[in-house]
């Protein structure tokens, strides 16, 4: 008798002999789609990537992945306006992941644990001058140094940090945090020259035998507006006020301070004034709250702190101790028009927060450079019209935020590196965005009602809404785990589990999965049930 009866007596084989892959019209393929948060990050952070590691509690790896793009997570975790969160797909499920707060946690954890960057493994022999040790300059210095170049980071000020130090109040960015993150960059071999203003870029480059330069001097000159004023009237600009906060002598603004403007700087200075002891800190803005360029959450925080707002108002005149304000109204196009109605406002000082200009003095005489609207024009590779001179941050046309500046630094560094090596840097093609419709969010937990109130409290602490405190480990872990991992496999085993044909091979932790096309019938269940949209169905070539 045969050993293994089939039916009654015939031998049987395994159905593995039957390769059902031939049935397929479409094949599933694993893809990495671009998470909307990553796409929205001006610094090009791989947010989903570092959250992936944070989810397991491996904060160091998370931090290392994060700092591949941004060397300043602790600062960024405080001052970034997190456009990532605005695009977070989770917002359509319940609320956005507190990316910024996790970033801050990782940054703080790195400082606490003393994690360092690894110095470059080889030297290129090229020298790059970076002018301006603000976020953009620091970022460029970090990236260029890691790419093996000698970097001299030169700044006119007494300390590095640029606007992060001289424009952002301490209550938003403690200086020890800033100092720690700057020091970590210096530690990989960046030469930092302070109190060393560059007056003429070409001369400095020539003298220092630099092969290339990256200019990131920032916009430190407060814009002024003409306000008729009496002799005793005290009118100062916001940049100066914030800068003087870093000096020995704090600015004397009086008990009643009016800030003129509607941007984030206006809010910073108003809140600073309040903290300096002003009993009244009033923002005067010619349009409505909705039209304010400042971020709404900052307005909210300011209001919570007792900052007063006068919308639809312009300052007509200042005399000692008082201001004359004209009420405005919006016309049909939304533009403010004077009404002829005036009122008086008591004020010891007026701080003008009307924007900043760039000091472009160092570029005088550089051939090929184009300056337009007070900023330097650069190409797609961040290079100015002058060969080898690149620029970024507030001094080029763009949104003026710390995050954009950090992004510029990274981008410029990559182009400078390529340029120094006689090549062209071509960024990797952007993957398709992992939009909400690509996800199957059923698989993510909606916190049950009994848990939610607790969580809500936690989440309030975990987001930027809570001005002061950061996350503790549990909260950060929780928040990280809220990530949907849009477009990128997080090894949830769904494809492996839901395949009716066992045609998905699990490769083990960290190695994701592979399709076994010998047996995959192309039903598409895996793609449909992939929570994060990391599987695409493509037509089979027949």
């Amino acid at each position: 008798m045969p050993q293994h009866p089939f039916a009654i007596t015939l031998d049987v084989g395994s159905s593995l002999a039957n390769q059902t892959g031939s049935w397929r019209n479409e094949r599933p393929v694993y893809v990495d789609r671009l998470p909307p948060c990553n796409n929205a990050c001006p610094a090009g952070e791989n947010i989903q990537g570092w959250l992936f590691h944070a989810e397991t509690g491996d904060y160091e790896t998370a931090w290392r992945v994060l700092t591949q793009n941004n060397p300043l997570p602790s600062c960024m975790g405080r001052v970034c306006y997190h456009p990532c969160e605005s695009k977070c797909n989770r917002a359509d499920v319940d609320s956005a992941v507190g990316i910024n707060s996790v970033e801050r946690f990782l940054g703080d954890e790195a400082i606490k644990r003393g994690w360092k960057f690894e110095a470059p493994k080889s030297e290129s022999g090229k020298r790059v001058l970076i002018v301006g040790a603000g976020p953009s300059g620091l970022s460029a210095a970090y990236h260029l140094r890691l790419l093996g170049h000698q970097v001299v980071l030169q700044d006119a000020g007494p300390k590095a940090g640029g606007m992060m130090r001289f424009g952002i109040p301490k209550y938003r960015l403690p200086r020890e945090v800033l100092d720690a993150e700057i020091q970590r960059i210096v530690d990989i071999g960046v030469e930092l020259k302070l109190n060393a203003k560059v007056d003429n870029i070409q001369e400095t480059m020539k003298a220092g035998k630099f092969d290339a330069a990256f200019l990131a001097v920032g916009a430190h000159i407060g814009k002024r507006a003409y306000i008729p004023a009496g002799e005793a009237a005290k009118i100062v600009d916001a940049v100066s006020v914030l800068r003087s906060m870093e000096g020995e002598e704090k600015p004397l603004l009086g008990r009643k301070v009016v800030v003129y403007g509607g941007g984030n700087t206006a809010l910073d200075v108003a809140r600073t004034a309040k903290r300096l002891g002003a009993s009244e800190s009033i923002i005067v803005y010619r349009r409505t709250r909705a039209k304010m360029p400042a971020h709404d959450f900052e307005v909210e925080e300011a209001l919570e702190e007792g900052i007063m707002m006068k919308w639809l108002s312009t300052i007509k005149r200042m005399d000692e101790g008082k201001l004359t304000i004209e009420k405005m109204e919006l016309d049909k196009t939304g533009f403010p028009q004077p009404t002829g109605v005036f009122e008086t406002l008591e004020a010891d000082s007026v701080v003008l927060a009307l924007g900043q200009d760039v000091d472009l003095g160092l570029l005088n005489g550089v051939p090929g450079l184009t300056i337009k609207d007070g900023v330097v024009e650069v190409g797609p590779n961040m290079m100015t019209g002058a060969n080898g001179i690149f620029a970024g941050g507030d001094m080029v046309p763009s949104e003026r935020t710390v995050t954009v500046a950090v992004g510029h630094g990274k981008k410029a560094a990559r182009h400078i590196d390529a340029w120094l090596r006689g090549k062209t840097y071509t960024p990797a093609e952007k993957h398709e965005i992992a939009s909400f419709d690509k996800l199957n969010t059923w698989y993510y937990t909606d916190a049950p009602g009994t848990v939610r109130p607790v969580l809500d409290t936690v989440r309030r602490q975990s987001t930027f809404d809570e001005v002061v405190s950061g996350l503790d480990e549990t909260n950060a872990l929780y928040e990280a785990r809220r990530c949907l991992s849009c477009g990128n496999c997080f090894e949830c085993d769904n494809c492996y589990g839901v395949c009716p044909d066992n045609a998905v091979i699990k490769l083990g932790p960290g190695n994701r999965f592979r399709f076994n096309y010998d047996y995959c019938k192309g039903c598409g269940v895996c793609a449909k049930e992939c929570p994060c949209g990391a599987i695409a169905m493509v037509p089979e070539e027949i």
Partner: protein
Amino acid sequence: MLKQVEGSISTAEAIGLCRPEVICAYPITPQTHIVEGLGRMVRTGEVKNCEFINVESEFGALSACIGSSAAGARTYTATSSQGLLFMAEAVYNASGMGLPIVMTLGTRAIGAPINIWNDHSDAMSMRDAGWLQMFAETNQESVDLHIQAFRLAEAVSMPIMVCVDGFILTHAVERVDVPTQAEVDAFLPPYDPVQVVDPKEPISIGAMVGPDAFTEVKYLQNYKLDLALKLIPELAREFKKKFDRDSGGLLRTYRTEDADMVVVAMGSVNGTIKDVIDEMRADGFSIGLVTLVSYRPFPAEELRKALSGCKQTVVVDRSFAIGMGGQLAADVDHALRNVDRAPQALSVIAGLGGRPVSRASLRGIFRKAKTEPWEGMHFLDLNQKIVATEVEHMSSKRRSGPIAENLLRRVSVAPVAE
């Protein structure tokens, strides 16, 4: 041990001695006393290490048997008549899967009209199902055949039906020698299955087979019954040696040497026929008997040998295929096909639905076979009068009514035996 005992009980005792491990049963007359007896023996511990399962139908009974047999347990069930039909799908299945289940068939007529008495219609309905089928002539043979049946079925891994005439044997109290446990153990070793569903060595049993191998699977089923054909006489010989009784085998002959006419029959009717033969031999009538024990596999070769010298053979069927004729007769015809100087084969249908087969009627029909022209099948003791009346009635009016009820009325005024 010799004792006076009801056939069902002695049969049950014999089955118990075979150490069945799983017994499934659903009650149907006349099989009931057998499974009742077994159930009692399992409960009293007379039969040890046995699961007795009361199921919800015959289909469930044989299905549970299929499961236990496939899982390697020695398995037994019993049924009759409608019960066998109700399990028909599983009957074919058990043999297709090659499971050596032993079943007692307390043979009985099949309705409608409903009839609980003995004939062989039920056994014949499953004659092509792939089971071995052996017919007991006496309750002693029932005991002996069951003991041989387990050995035989397990040897070829095919199921077997031991057909025991309902009431005539099952409910008859006779002198039966029921062997001892030691005797049976010496004859019947523990079940060693050729296939078993077991997590220790996972296999698939009962898979689908398409045109590419179905013929071969069926061929091998037949091959196993061919093996049984050789094995049955060997077992009978061994049995005789150990138990000193002629029981089983493919067939037995009675006074066939030099007989001009040889009767062929199965089951208990053979006893009556033997008496008739003795009487007729005494009268100088040259007649003998072949008692067929193994109906499936059908011992054509042995039968040809047994019939080789006679001029006529009369097959006494206890059932018939409506529109065709006696099944056993057809099989005998088949066996004699292409035989030189084959005997004239005549067919008698006798004892349907429990009608007594009397010696007088048999004598009459055997004489008639020798002396009168014979066409088709002859229904023993057919009441021609009421049949003719009913035929006339049916042809006279469209709504002639139900035949069974019409006949019952007529029988009450015109008794059967005339």
